[in-house]
């Protein structure tokens, strides 16, 4: 078809009598989890606007917990109703998938969010101001750090209860992200959960400059990666003439013979596919924190308020790996031979860099940041397997890992000195003598990170490596165990520091938390041990959820 002819056909098409545009058909019941969370978030904004300052904290916490619990209940209802298996399909006119992986990951994100709310709501760690308890968030986020306005806000004992609706918006985006079934929904979901996270990162009550620096870094790099993703989406549209996953997959596998007239020249051009696919992958790998897109992780993890770090480290990984899985398994399975070598490289570099650089860290939050990078590498090893076993192992790993992470960061909030949290590792010396219980709990989390048997970390690691080995990635497994050995070194170093070093005279104290943080930590320990000792039920769950709807 000549150029002129194609323009002509475009013109004639446009000149046709306007067809009736069908009203969108939305399956509200199947989208209930997302709708509930976003609805609760909107209500939270109203609460913030109309309730007196005194009543806001309790109202917000209650609203958030109820909203998340209701959303989780609806996820369970959908899963029980068969949407994870036989009724799995693509809802909302092809925009959102309701299938096993989506429901499993949404459930995980909601549980993570629920536990994170407990750590957000903690108000007993910082000394009360004017008899009013304060939490870990800035008194008045808009005030200049160190300025008069901030001074006044702190003196007045203000608290930023906006964090709760902001958190809910982030969770809402994270629910859509792993379920997104077209590229535009993917992008919108990405922005919906990223923007609230940037804001949350900037809200630390102590060390506000560090916190704001982290937020700016995260925002700039995040915006950069979003741009990559969006550009990739455009190129993929140019390649396939559609943004739906199923449509692109059809073109990739060569099932579509008659391209639309508008895109006849570019459609099926492999250069567009490769470049576009790579750019979308880049955007996702950034969120996952894989090397070489990991630069933001340590700074942001360190600067953000610790409850936010815990939430972000756990939930973002879950959501982003979900999206990555869907993209690779639904859209690009036909391209396996192109992306697998690249992902091999990324996985290997991520495991090694995460483990090796972590060895030199002196700040516990940065240490956990690099450890999260190494873990991203392990999970990628499961992603690469391209088999149902690979999907289920990744799902299991994400669930196991996120609770260990939440628990570990919750413990970090407890160890404090006069300047707030004492995150420098030298201050943790002798913690095991001063507070054996807290140190022992943290040791459990560290052992789980290190993948010692009888913890969830081991079961997860075994699952992904098993899937990788069966997928023929034996070298990946060997590099994986080697970097685990390196990683073990620094986890052990922290344990040595806590238990075998003499406590320093001016060392930090362990604050006694309110029940909310205790519950969060206890849940972390319970999940870690249960998934380590009796993982079968959860492996089954992940195994049943491992089939994508197309």
């Amino acid at each position, binding site marked *: 078809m000549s150029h002129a002819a194609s323009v002509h056909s475009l013109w004639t098409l446009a000149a046709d009598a306007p067809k009736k545009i069908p009203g969108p058909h939305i399956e509200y019941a199947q989208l209930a989890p997302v709708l509930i969370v976003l609805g609760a978030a909107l209500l939270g904004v109203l609460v913030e606007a109309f309730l007196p300052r005194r009543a806001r904290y309790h109202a917000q916490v209650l609203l958030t917990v109820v909203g998340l619990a209701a959303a989780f209940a609806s996820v369970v209802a959908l899963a029980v109703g068969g949407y994870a298996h036989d009724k799995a399909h693509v809802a909302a006119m092809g925009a959102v998938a309701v299938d096993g992986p989506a429901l499993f990951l949404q459930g995980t994100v909601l549980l993570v969010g629920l536990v994170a709310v407990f750590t957000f709501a903690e108000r007993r760690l910082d000394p009360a101001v004017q008899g009013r308890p304060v939490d870990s968030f800035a008194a008045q986020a808009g005030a200049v750090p160190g300025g008069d306005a901030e001074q006044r806000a702190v003196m007045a004992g203000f608290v930023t209860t906006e964090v709760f609706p902001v958190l809910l918006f982030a969770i809402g985006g994270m629910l859509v992200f792993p379920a997104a079934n077209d590229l535009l929904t993917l992008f919108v979901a990405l922005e919906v959960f990223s923007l609230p996270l940037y804001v949350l990162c900037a809200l630390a009550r102590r060390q506000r400059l560090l916190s704001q620096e982290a937020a700016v870094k995260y925002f700039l790099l995040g915006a950069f990666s979003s741009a990559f993703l969006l550009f990739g989406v455009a190129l993929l549209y140019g390649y396939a003439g559609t943004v739906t996953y199923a449509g692109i997959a059809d073109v990739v596998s060569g099932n579509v013979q008659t391209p639309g007239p508008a895109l006849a020249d570019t459609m099926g051009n492999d250069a567009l596919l490769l470049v576009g696919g790579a750019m979308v992958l880049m955007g996702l790998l950034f969120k996952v924190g894989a090397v070489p897109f990991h630069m933001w992780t340590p700074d942001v993890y360190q600067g953000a308020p610790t409850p936010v770090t815990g939430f972000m480290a756990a939930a973002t990984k879950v959501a982003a790996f979900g999206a990555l899985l869907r993209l690779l398994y639904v859209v690009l399975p036909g391209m396996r031979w192109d992306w697998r070598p690249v992902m091999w490289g990324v996985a290997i570099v991520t495991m090694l860099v995460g483990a090796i650089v972590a060895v030199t860290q002196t700040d516990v939050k940065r240490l956990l940041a690099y450890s999260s990078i190494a873990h991203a590498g392990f999970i990628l090893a499961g992603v690469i397997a391209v088999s149902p076993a690979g999907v*289920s192992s990744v799902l299991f790993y994400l669930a196991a890992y996120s609770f260990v992470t939440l628990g570990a960061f919750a413990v970090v909030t407890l160890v404090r000195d006069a300047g707030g949290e004492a995150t420098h590792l030298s201050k943790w010396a002798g913690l095991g*003598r*001063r*507070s*054996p*219980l807290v140190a022992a709990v943290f040791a459990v989390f560290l*052992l789980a990170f290190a993948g*010692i*048997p*009888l913890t969830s970390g*081991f*079961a997860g690691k*075994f*699952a992904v*490596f*098993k899937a990788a*080995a*069966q997928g023929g990635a*034996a070298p990946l*497994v*060997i590099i*994986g*165990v*080697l970097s*685990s*050995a390196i990683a*073990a*070194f620094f986890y*052990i*170093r922290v344990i*040595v520091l806590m*238990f*075998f*070093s*003499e406590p320093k005279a001016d060392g930090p104290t362990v604050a006694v938390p309110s029940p909310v943080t205790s519950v969060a930590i206890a849940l972390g320990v319970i999940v870690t041990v249960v998934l380590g000792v009796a*993982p*079968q039920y959860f*492996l*089954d769950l992940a*195994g049943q959820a491992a089939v994508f709807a197309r």
Partner: protein
Amino acid sequence: MSFPLLTLTAAVPALGAVATAAVPAARRTAAKWTALAFSLATLVLAAVQLVRFAPGAKGPFQLTESHAWIKDFGVRYELGVDGIAVALIALTAVLVPFVILAGWHDADPLETKSSRWRPTQGFFALILMVEAMVLIAFEATDVFLFYIFFEAMLIPMYFLIGGFGDRAGEHGEAETAAQRSYAAVKFLLYNLAGGLIMLAAVIGLYAVTAHQLGAGTFSLQEITQARADGRLEFATTTERALFLGFFFAFAVKAPLWPLHTWLPNAMGEATAPVAVLITAVVDKVGTFAMLRFCLQLFPEASKWATPAILVLSLVSILYGALLAVGQRDIKRLIAYASISHFGFIILGIFAMTTQGQSGATLYMVNHGISTAALMLVAGFLISRRGSRLIADYGGVQKVAPVLAGTFLVSGLATLSLPGLAPFVSEFLVLVGTFTRHPVIGGIATLGIVLAALYVLVLYQRTMTGPVREQVRRMPDLRARELAVVAPLIALLLFLGVYPKPLTKIVNPAVEHTMSQVHKTDPRPDVPVKAPVTAHDVEAAK
């Protein structure tokens, strides 16, 4: 569904650990008695195992238990014992009460620090935890189950080494603590690295079985059965790679030269009872696993690797013994002696003869008892003087004759004096090696000579000669200490004169292992010209 004796044997010390840890901070003595009671209960259960175990029965494993555990990984909770396992379980169960008794005061806090710091409860709870995990490892017939406890036992062991040491000597508290934590970290990293290499091999084993059998399995019986039926065949390279992955971990644990360097540090810095736990109990899991898993899962690769392993074990024997001769520190000397002895054990295992492997198994038991005795007496000696250096002692036998006497007897056992238990096993190992590898067997005997040297020189320098000033007021063994040493020495004497109960249990299991490797003993090649007849006898007259 029979009575879960094996589970119970391992569960009792685990429960004991919880119970001991739960004792309130102020009631230290109660914690000690709790721990001792649970360890004795475990001993009773091990004795029941020994009685219920029928040496001649059919099938490789007895008292078996099997339950589904992690279906997705092909993992079953499978326990079962053969003669080798029963002997080592008995050894563990016998030694732990003595370890607890010997370490009675090792974890008493120096001063009352924070009321929440409870070292005593922790110490005894960790010992019981290690015992529980070691017992499960001996009982497991599922590779994955074994692996889990093989790895997990590192954690309590690590805290035992790093958290509790001898009272500071002349170096001061800070430096002692630093050395101790270095030793603990070295112990953990060596063993963890070994374990992770093994993890790769374990995953590889799953991938192979899943590929060939349709469903991945870790059951030792199922895998050996499938190999016998021809349903499962390892490619040569795969089998060798998997064998090396397993063997590496066990060689670190055992330890075999050149992976041994963590042992002298760990045994030197840990208290004597913990050192006993390391060398007499935990390390035995390594040599035991070579027999049970390396040989039975990968027979062809085992035969392929035999020459190299024999040479390495020979190096271990001589290197350990030579370094023991040169040591100035009593505990490190015993550690190097142990490295030499582990060389003998591994030599016996890979000599691939019935005598060699029976000898190796007996050696594990006897080395456990003799080293425990020697190390614990050495610990009593060190606790009296506050120094580990040989040069700080002299003439002890004049002031503390019982201590010196027990030290001598356990030392003689360590050098394999005939009449004491280790002689039987060392002799069997050497004979077993000789029939197949005369040169290696010949060189290995040098180890015995060197053993005599390091033990007797140690005794001479510390116990004989003029009484040194600092030793003059040294008290002799107390009743508690005697209660620890006397039964161990009695055992050494008994098994030295009458090893039959042990060999009767061990031999069928060894024969089974040998049949798995498809090895038969070499025929004696005594030159026999013709059948000897009555006529010849007449002619000879």
